[in-house]
């Protein structure tokens, strides 16, 4: 799990100051955790990164991919590592309200 800067969180009226900061420190420590304002893209990105980290830690898994794709294990590793950056591409543009209206 990589450390990213804390995403801006949607204001949360439910929580008072105490648990808000708790949540904040939770997010700071575990990047993959989410909150009510997490988008699908963010969630999917985290899934991918966690999965890739998981594959990279298991040589047999890498071997399997290597055999299936017909490339060397090192290449598989490199591909996976490169994919870490933006596994799901750029985040989708925010649709404005009138687009929804169309």
């Amino acid at each position: 799990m990589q450390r990213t800067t804390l995403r801006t969180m949607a204001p949360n009226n439910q929580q008072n100051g105490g648990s808000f900061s708790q949540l904040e420190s939770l997010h700071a420590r575990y990047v993959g955790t989410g909150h009510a304002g997490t988008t699908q893209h963010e969630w999917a990105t985290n899934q991918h990164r966690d999965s890739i980290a998981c594959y990279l830690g298991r040589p047999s898994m890498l071997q399997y991919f290597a055999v299936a794709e017909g490339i060397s294990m090192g290449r598989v590793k490199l591909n996976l590592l490169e994919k870490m950056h933006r596994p799901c591409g750029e985040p989708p543009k925010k649709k404005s309200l009138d687009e929804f209206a169309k």
Partner: protein
Amino acid sequence: MRKSAKETEQGTAARVAFGTEVAGFDEELYGAPGPLRARDDYVTSINPQESDAEKQKDDDVDAAFLQSKKPASASITAPQYLIEEAAAASAKLNPQDPFKQFMPKTIAEQQNSYLARGLKRVLSPLRAQHAADASKPAGSRVEQNVANGKPPATPDKPPLPPSTPTAIPSTNRPKRKRRWDVVADTATTVTKTQSEDSNLPPNAVPVPDVLPPSAPSSTKPPIPKATRWDAPIPTTTLGSRSRWDATPGTMSMSQVTKKSRWDKTPMVQAATTAGATPILGAGSSAVNTPFVQNGAVPPELVNASRWQADIEMRNRPITDQELDELLPSDGYTILEPPTSYKPVQTPARLLMKTPAVPQTPLYNLPTESEVARETLGIPVELPDTLKSIQMKPEDYKNFAKVLDKNSKDEDLPAEEQVERKIMRLLLKIKNGTPNVRKVAMRQISEKAREFGAEPLLKQILPLLMSPTLEHQERHLYVKVVDRILHKLGELVRPHVRHILVVIEPMLIDDDYYARVEGREIISNLAKAAGLPTMISTMRPDIDHQDEFVRNTTARAFAVVTSALGIPSMLPFLRAVCGSKKSWEARHTGIKTVQQTAILMGVAVLPHLKELVEIIQSGLLDEQGKVRLITAHALANLAEASAPYGIESFDPVLAPLWQGIRLHRGKTLAAFLKAIGFIIPLMDPEYANHYAREVNSILIREFKSPDEEMKTVVLKVVMQCVSCSGVEPRYVREDLAPEYFRCFWIRRMALDRRNFRGVVDTTLQIAMKIGVSDVLGRLVGDLKDESDPYRRMVLETVENVTDKLGLSDINSALEARLIDGLLFAFQAQGNYNDSGSALRALSVVIRKLDRRAKPYLNQIVGIIKWRLNNKSAKIREHAADLVCKIAEVMKVCGEDALMGHMGTVLFEYLGEEFPDVLGSILRAMKSIVEVIGINDMQPPINELLPRLTPILKNRHEKVQENCIILVGKIANKGAHFVSPKEWMRICFELLELLKAPIKAIRKSAVATFGYIAKAIGPSNVLTTLLNNLKVQERTQRVCTTVAIAIVAETCQPYTVLPSMMNEYRIPELHVQNGILKSLSFLFEYIRDMAGDYIYAVTPMLEDALIDRDLVHRQTACTAVGHLALGVRGLGLEDALIHLLNHVWPNIFETSPHVINAVISAIQGCAVALGPGPILMYLLQGLFHPARKVRDVYWRIYNGIYIYAQEGLVPSYPSLSTVDIENEDNEVEDDRYERHELFLIV
């Protein structure tokens, strides 16, 4: 009687004359009529503040007069006997309050004179126009007021309404001289004039309100003559309603204050409540804060004065007029009083004797009337918004503006409205209930920017400087400052100085929390205002002449450094420490470094080199104080960075080691201290070298009589000796002999600090040179006749033996040691003994182990002897010693001796003193432990019946030891005792289940388990289940724990059926109790629960769909424990079933319930794996309703943290999510994890 009147007519200077037609002027009090009256420079108006123009003039005159006529004050002082009498009277009326020591003390009362200096710091004006005000001569008057202990006038007071009577032009009353000593206080002007007889002679005494005025009130000339009376009437005026209430500051003065005011002795003033007003410097009058009017009248004082006034009234001398009425006119002649006659009358009494009141008033029921409240300055009715607030006396002054019900905010200017709003919030924060306070706190921080920094700080800061401030209040105000700092951010910049003046003294407060709060505020301030502002604000204080200011400034800078990081402060510190201008600046800079080291600890390490370089020149400074502080700073830096960073100290090694040869006294102590902290950082060989270098000095200073030097030397010796590089031989031969000669003397044992230092250092030396060397030197001293010295030896023996054992001492030393210890043990006094002999002896015996055998007989003999002693403490120690050596006795094979001890102790079970009884029980317990139940003497069946009544004892120590002993017997030797006896004990134990000490509850619960095991669970269980019906919650909770314990010790199947049967009773307490014990049960039996899960599932199911919240909560806890217990047993089906019942509860909002639900779900996540839980979660993670998402993400976060890897295979395929990319093409597989589709 008639004489009295005649006599007064003589008008001698020593006497006072009142109530007579001719001389209505007290010449002693108010000066002789002739020459003084002729003074033309008198200000002839009572109140100079009526109009601005006049005010200006008067101020000037006032000031000038104050300068010129100061010596005149001496002649106008109240006579000493009057003051003493009044003080005695008030002392009689207000005897010493027995609860005084428990009353919350104000901070000012607790501070020493150094800390109190903080209050005297100048609060400069917050506003420019205030500064302008300050330039007026009013400033000088204010200072005068402060010196008098009187509240300064508040120039911002609204102009008086035209109807208010103002001072009469002086021409109207030519005789009425304006009193120079009367503080020009607008308050006096606002006095309500009472109906006063205009026909009275101009000098007539105003009629206090306690006496109904009898004279017809034809006209009401607003003659504010009251002001002249306040001075000589210390107490009697307090009860009166008239214009006195308007000058609260004056009223509150006790007699002492009065005196101090006249005598101009500021020290006395400072001691009084109303004194010690912060000295407001040049513009402080303009700050216009209510805090300065802190004078408050304690109600008891008012009552006392009222009472006294009444007495005086009744005992007043009879006047001529009255005598004329009483006595026939003929047959009597009026005699001249002899010249030697002196009536025993005090001016205070005379004041009460007024011609206007012909008869003594009848008794009035003392009622808490509105009048009385007003007298105290308390508004009759508080505004509605503040109704519920508790008020302290001084609050009525501080918050006077918002306490008047009749004043409405609407018709005030906006600025004042804001002021009142803030004041109201502050009052609520200070005195409100927690809820009120919370709301007010939130409001004030939310609206902070709206109010603006200035109005807020203008009110809070003076309150923080108030001399009547208490800890709680300061805490709250500081909290307010903290909150608003966050909100205000850079807006506070102009006010940094004011905040610092108030907060800095907190950094050296005695109270730890005050220091922490002060640090927090300053660090927040630094973050809000930024480094440049902080530096430019505090720079003038760096070389301030007052040491107090420099001290606090250095500490504040240290806080700023730790808040903003050392690197940003380094250039500034370098400049300050190298200052050529003044040594004060260098001193402050180095002190800042020192404080930074203390504050930041090991975090100084990255910048250690720079810091040392910055301060190193201070070691060679020409100013002694700078050298001193530099050495201290180096010591703190070395301490903070230990055990690293020696290379940074390289440049200072030479000056330090040279310095110890050059300096003496305090500086030498500081240098040695620095060396002591630096040596442990060095490599072993260097440490050895440098330690030897310093040792010659150290040994020389062993003999120093200076206490501080002794402390430092001890510490340095300890640090040197503990270095691995220093050779034992060197310490043994060179250091130790001198050390023992100089420090092991009786005088060292008398001071606590030295005591500790010697004990610790000797331990270090023993670790270096071995036990036998040290003990050999000390053993003889065990028989010393000085008690404290013996204790020091004993403590050292204990520590050394405990740490190093006794394996290397020979038998001769061993014998001497035991002999000495036994002597010390027996010589210990029966009072003032901390048990050090007991501890030392038991440690030595334990360490001797087998070698102790020869001495045991002797020791047991001593114990038996001392068990008979009259003193309870000695008996207790004897019993404690048995407990400590029982194990060694077993090792030495002295079973017979132990049996004997058991019987002896058994006989002492009738002991009355609970502490001793507790110790005896503990001794019994340790014997039972060692010897075994079966061989116990006396036999168990005799012992236990004696213990049962002791269980009723309320003393904690007795209860605890007794229950543990009973528990031991129940565990190992239950068969010795009849079941009936055990049942009886069971009932006793039920009481103990709610004992306040956890250890007792724990052993009581454990004993339940043992007893249940011994006599079968059914009887015990019946008792316990019945106990679930009791009202008291603690007892029910303990019962549930006991049930669970019984189930654990006797197998769950013996208990579960009856529990489940009991659950059918439709009573909430019982059902909850069963569920709770079920939850404990599952917690205790862990995986055994697998056998019973199917049996209890229907019951839990029922509980989970119950209406009652607590019911579901407890059931959830039970499910959580159950799930954790059965993990890996293949019981997922039941768990899924239970989870289905748990899941709907996730939207509960009560914190206890939701926590229980979450813990149940997390328990299930452990047992089922995260996958199934994720399936539940997927429904709600992106639910349209935020409330739903909130809860689901919370649960998701829980399982993500618990088992993130486990989620990887369980994540759903996201192929169904359509995404538009940059080119507005819809992609459907961007979120897919393609690798997982690879197939070989």
